[in-house]
């Protein structure tokens, strides 16, 4: 008997120079064109945007956080609501993280054992709580996202203790098996394993090879974007995408700067998420291809141009930098305006990447992108190195 797969992956086009590719996955709540950037709607909402606005922008998938939703509103309410899609009125796809990253990054008192992560709850009772792989999947089953993440043993990339990292690699795989075992909705939700191993190439290789033996619909590369140097970062991404199979999506967690997205697409990643575009909007920063605009700055007070003349978003159609400059960080609705622009910026970037790959002009796109960002051609070393590893030379 065959059941319908909750993730159908189709490879559409491959770049002939780099490892970049265009693909599409069809999930229970619709298709997702990749490479894709997934904005983060932590608590079942994306910073001041209505789900219908996001739908109108053509957003196909967003991320929500298991840790936050498990705390509030909690599993019981989510189940009564019939899942997060219904609760928040979002009809397109959702992905939830496992909660493990929040444990380690938000909570000082987290203690990791074989059983799970023990931590002091942030809720009013301050009770000690244990998040196990089983419990994480239980919450994620209640949320009902199209893609869910295994609970992983996250070690900071800056931790030098190799024995501890090795332990985390093997534990992550053991936890993956426990997650798969208790998964109640394999017909509607895909669990992605997470490749760990910080910056040790041998450990990353073990982790990736262990994971590809499991019967899953896609893979994530975790534990990066945590303060390591860019020179280390790209090499690990490069290594992981060399091992992970071509016929399944590869999700690089926590990456969202435009430059990083372009490079990691070249390295063969398909999915990305990051709070950066929406968080920076709250501080009055608008994204453009030539860098960030901090709209609070005095120089924008009489600048009657839009944030970006080529941007099709409502904010760029209707508002000037001068206006935004006077309202950002003062009124909440100004934050909504910048958020919309930044979300559209990310979506347009990914669309341009996809189009250039389809036309087999991705290397030209990358060169033009980098030149716009570094008009004096003073490219960072990691940018040159990573691109030359996939046969794009910026010195031409």
């Amino acid at each position, binding site marked *: 008997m065959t059941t319908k797969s909750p993730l159908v992956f189709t490879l559409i086009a491959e770049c002939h120079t780099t490892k970049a590719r265009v693909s599409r996955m069809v999930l229970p709540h619709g298709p997702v064109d990749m490479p894709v950037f997934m904005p983060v709607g932590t*608590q079942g909402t994306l910073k001041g945007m209505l789900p*219908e606005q996001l739908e109108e922008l053509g957003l196909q998938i967003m991320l929500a956080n298991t840790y936050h939703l498990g705390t509030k509103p909690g599993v019981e309410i989510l189940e*009564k*609501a019939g899942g997060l899609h219904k*609760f928040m009125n979002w009809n397109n796809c959702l992905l939830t993280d496992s909660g493990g990253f929040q444990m380690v990054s938000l909570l000082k008192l987290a203690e990791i054992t074989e059983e799970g992560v023990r931590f002091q709850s942030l809720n009013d009772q301050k009770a000690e709580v244990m998040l196990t792989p089983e419990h994480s999947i239980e919450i994620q089953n209640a949320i009902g996202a199209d893609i869910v993440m295994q609970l992983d043993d996250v070690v900071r990339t800056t931790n030098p203790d190799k024995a501890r990292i090795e332990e985390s690699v093997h534990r992550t795989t053991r936890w993956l098996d426990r997650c798969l075992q208790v998964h109640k909705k394999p017909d509607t939700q895909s669990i992605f394993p997470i490749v760990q191993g910080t910056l040790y190439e041998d450990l990353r290789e073990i982790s990736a090879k262990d994971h590809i033996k499991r019967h899953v619909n896609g893979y994530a590369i975790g534990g990066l974007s945590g303060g390591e140097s860019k020179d280390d970062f790209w090499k690990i991404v490069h290594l992981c995408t060399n091992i992970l199979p071509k016929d399944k999506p590869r999700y690089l967690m926590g990456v969202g700067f435009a430059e990083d997205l372009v490079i990691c697409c070249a390295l063969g990643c398909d999915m990305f998420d990051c709070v950066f575009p929406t968080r920076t909007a709250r501080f009055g920063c608008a994204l453009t291809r030539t860098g960030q605009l901090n709209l609070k700055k005095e120089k924008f007070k*009489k600048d009657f141009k839009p944030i970006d003349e080529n941007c099709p978003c409502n904010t760029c159609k209707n508002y000037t930098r001068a*206006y935004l400059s*006077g*309202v950002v960080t003062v009124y909440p609705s100004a934050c909504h305006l910048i958020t919309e622009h930044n979300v559209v910026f990310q979506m347009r970037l990914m669309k341009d990447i996809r189009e250039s790959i389809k036309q087999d002009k991705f290397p030209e796109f990358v060169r033009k992108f980098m030149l716009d960002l570094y008009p004096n051609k003073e490219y960072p070393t990691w940018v040159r190195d990573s691109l030359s590893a996939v046969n794009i030379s910026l010195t031409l």
Partner: protein
Amino acid sequence: MKFYVESVSKCAQRLGTLSEIDAKPSVSIKTPAVMLHTQGGQIPHITHEVFKLVSRDPQILQIPLAGMHTFKEAMQYYEGTISNFIGSKDSLTCLTLQDPCNITKQGHNSTLKVPIWTKNGKVYYDAKSYMDVVESFKPDIYFLLSDGDTNISSSEKRISKSLSNTVSFYKECLERHRKSQTLANSFVIAPVVGGYKQLAREKFLKSILADVKDVGGFLIDGLHNNGPETEFLEFAEIEPVVKNILNKLPTDKLRVIQGCWNPVNVINLVEMGIDLFDSSYCHILTERSAAMTFAIEPTDQTDTYEINLRDAKYLDDFQPILTGCNCTSCTKYSRAYIHHLLSVHELLGPILVMIHNVYHYLRFFEKIRKCVKSNTLQALQVSITEQFQNHQKTK
């Protein structure tokens, strides 16, 4: 812009139309109407883009100067009008001095200038600097500068000062208006001050009514210091003052009142012949996480007047804010979801509450116009008053 009123009685409910707007000839606004209160050029929590989900009808945006002072310099260089600048080119704008949602702090008055509170603190405006702003903003409607810092407990001395300041502002601003080509098509609203002292009100009216050419309407100012307290003012206290003023004003001019009056008092004021209000009440409610649920039509399915969505009883209440309401918040989101958003301080919480409140309030004004037309305002007043009193009892 011109105001046409269908009645000539001095102090009675009436219907009117604001039309023949210079740049927007196809637009007309039926009164009694509500201006949409804005801060920094946006309805609080609702961008102009999101407002399209609430209504596509033409609106007057009320633009308090306090939130716009920051653009004073930029607007001198900007070529368009304030409605273009704030991103709502199809709306009409009405520039006002104080923000009805924020308390005007007392005791900061001075001779021939008035304070407003901006994000950078207190700023004084005199007739010249105020009219400079009006000229660069080019609003469709504007209030003349006034010193309306009076309330029921103001001293004779304060009221007398408010009078002399405002008479002087009136003359200077009007003179400037008459000379200005830019403002030739702007609709002028003259504030009427004098606190709760009938003699002072009469004295003020005497000194301005001799010269009301170019004045399109009057603002009943000086009744309160703005902010949330306006909601709880007793109608019995303001009634004699307002009545006395309305009896002396020319009937063919627009009558405006500012502040977050509760729905009962809005009806009372409409009954006396007020034409134009503002939506600050929606914002005041949203700030306390409250949504309007009073019945406008007898068929509305509700037994509450207003509900507080932070209340834990909404944790698993999957009904809409108001069953049967057609606003985006009610058709697509539940009380439980909004409760969740409010309790985790997410930006979407107040957005959804505000969408409902503004939608409900616009519907309320539509009903008011219908009732005035069919002479049934009395029945609406009875119904809203009863709901309000029941709500006060259960609180």
